[in-house]
């Protein structure tokens, strides 16, 4: 499984992007990543998840997941809605998956990246 995560927008307008492949992860982490992606229902999400109303300074996230047999890309905002269906948790679930896989979550707008040791994979 391969995951591309990109965050754009915010007041700073800085683009942050990272990619990971599950076969580069320790086996427990790869297994946890697969579990989290499955739990998020990611492949059933619409391609666009727009927020109610225009808030130009919010972050826009684009996540692409390729599990070998299928690839899906979702672009949207954390509190976005899709076709009237609440999809507020889509991003949190996907970001949780990214964190668990040590995709590289940033602790500031300005280029300081958390290291693996700062972001341990939770025991489940």
């Amino acid at each position, binding site marked *: 499984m391969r995951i591309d995560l*990109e965050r*754009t*927008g*915010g*007041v*700073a*307008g*800085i*683009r*942050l992007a990272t990619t990971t492949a599950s076969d580069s992860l320790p086996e427990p982490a790869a297994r946890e990543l697969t579990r989290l992606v499955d739990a998020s229902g990611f492949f059933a999400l619409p391609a*666009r998840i727009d927020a109610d109303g*225009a*808030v*130009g*300074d*919010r972050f*826009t996230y*684009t996540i692409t997941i390729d599990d070998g047999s299928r690839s899906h890309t979702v*672009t949207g905002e954390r509190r976005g809605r899709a076709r009237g269906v609440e999809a507020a948790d889509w991003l949190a679930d996907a970001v949780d998956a990214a964190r668990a896989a040590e995709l590289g979550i940033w602790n500031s*707008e*300005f*280029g*300081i*990246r958390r290291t693996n040791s700062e972001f341990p994979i939770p025991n489940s």
Partner: protein
Amino acid sequence: MSDVFGSLVKQWSLNENVDKADWLIGAGLFTKAVHGVALRSMKAPGTAYDDPTLGKDPQPADMAHYVKTTQDSGGVHINSGIPNRAFFLAASGIGGFAWQKAGLIWYRTLVGALGPSSGFQAAADATTSVAGALFGDTSVERKAVVDAWATVGLKARPVSMPSLTMAGKATARPT
């Protein structure tokens, strides 16, 4: 618009004229680990940073390089390079302290002539109209605004506006 007024506050506080101002947004925010001077440059959009991790400042400087994207809420922090540069050019064309005339034109436009969904063309039209109403249709101020938008690729189509007064105008920095 936010960048315009943020830069004006900085220029006012430092008592800088259009030539002395750095026209940078977020100068000094980056650590030494980042190759860049600021988040954005109003004077030269696209040149604020070029970093292995963050990539290159994606801002266009004119409409020919407008970025159509679903990222960044439709590229609002990317394409803002275009109107940012228009303000820099207008202020530079007028000269002096940017908050006194160019800033007044943009302020009056923001509070009276634009809505939440107004686009760049509307901003070009409205700032030109306001400049004409404030300073006269043959004024150097209005011409500077028209020329600024033309440089970034927008032909202003001003509408007739009631005459505006300079009441409440920005004054020189108190000493």
